């Protein structure tokens, strides 16, 4: 791991800059919807259909996939698009980095030490809560139209009003709740 936040911040900043320079700002949470759409389309061929009337050329009976001229529907029908490939590559990059540093220690693989210090060693209790948290996080991110990368980082980098609104909301709940939940240190 990069121990210095100065070096880490510089490198992370360069990646965000490179993304804007070469293509577009980084964002992740949309791809949860695209993946859901791909799964849905796999079991129900009517989930996304070609449509000459839609701006993107694709339509869906689901209002969300169908919005903005069916742009999400199009991405579901063509997973080999920038946003989706970006997230798949992100997983590969993280896996390589972890492999190179010898992997995540066994005890950490089920829960972080700070959770164990406050809530004990039961992995299923941790899994249940991270599952619930994942649900809340992605519902919130989609309602907001972006997440920590798209709104907080890419948004504030571009001085987007929405980025500041999102960041205030996220820290307004996140900071007091984390202080309340994790009183004991690892």
């Amino acid at each position: 791991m990069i121990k210095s936040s100065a070096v880490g911040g510089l490198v992370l900043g360069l990646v965000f800059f490179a993304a804007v320079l070469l293509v577009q700002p980084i964002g992740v949470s949309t791809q949860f919807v695209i993946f859901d759409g791909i799964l849905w389309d796999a079991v129900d061929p009517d989930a996304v259909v070609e449509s000459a009337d839609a701006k993107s050329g694709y339509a869906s009976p689901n209002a969300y996939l169908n919005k903005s001229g069916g742009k999400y529907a199009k991405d579901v029908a063509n997973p080999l698009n920038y946003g989706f490939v970006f997230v798949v590559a992100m997983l590969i990059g993280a896996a390589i980095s972890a492999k190179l540093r010898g992997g995540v220690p066994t005890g950490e693989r089920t829960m972080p030490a700070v959770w164990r210090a406050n809530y004990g060693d039961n992995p299923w209790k941790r899994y249940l809560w991270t599952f619930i948290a994942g649900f809340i996080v992605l519902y919130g991110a989609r309602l907001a139209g972006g997440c920590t990368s798209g709104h907080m980082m890419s948004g504030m980098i571009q001085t987007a009003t929405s980025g500041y609104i999102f960041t205030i909301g996220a820290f307004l709940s996140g900071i007091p709740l984390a202080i309340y939940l994790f009183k004991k240190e690892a």
Partner: protein
Amino acid sequence: MTTIILALVIGAAFGFVLDRVGATNPGYIIGMLNLKNLHLMKTIVLAIGVASVLTFTGLLIGIIDPGHLSVKAAYIGVFVGGILLGVGFAISGYCPGTGLTAAATGRKDAMFFALGGLLGAAAYMGSYAWVETTGLLDKIMGGDSTLGTIAGTTYPALIEGVSGEWVGIVLGIALIVIASVLPARLIPAK
């Protein structure tokens, strides 16, 4: 094809760096939120500052296509969604990007986070038509606005007549300074 190669290269670099800076470790995220270890906050604030200064300098000297910017709309749901995300962020120590990358590093709790996330995203897909009727998605503060006017874009300026590029550079420098003066922790050790 070029786009796909760029997606592979930038995506892999992003995932690699997220892991290297400690963002795939929920312990660091919880430390940032409960103010007992600001390592990641210093990292993120610096990253935003650096990227902002470089982006707006690049726009000023003409090496960045203004069309590459992508400013999201502001509406009440952005704030409500931010609050919801903060709740799950604090409970788990994961956000969408760090949750997925943490799962890729072999963290099992992150895999459950990702599964919950897929269900949460599906729930939003299912409730979108209703959410639209609540007015939560109605644009506020100019919609896809930025603080100042950015040349070559049609984004409305929150503060009319101010150079968006220079606002971005000045704020970026301010964030770099904040990142360097933030202490290691704000809540003292017991």
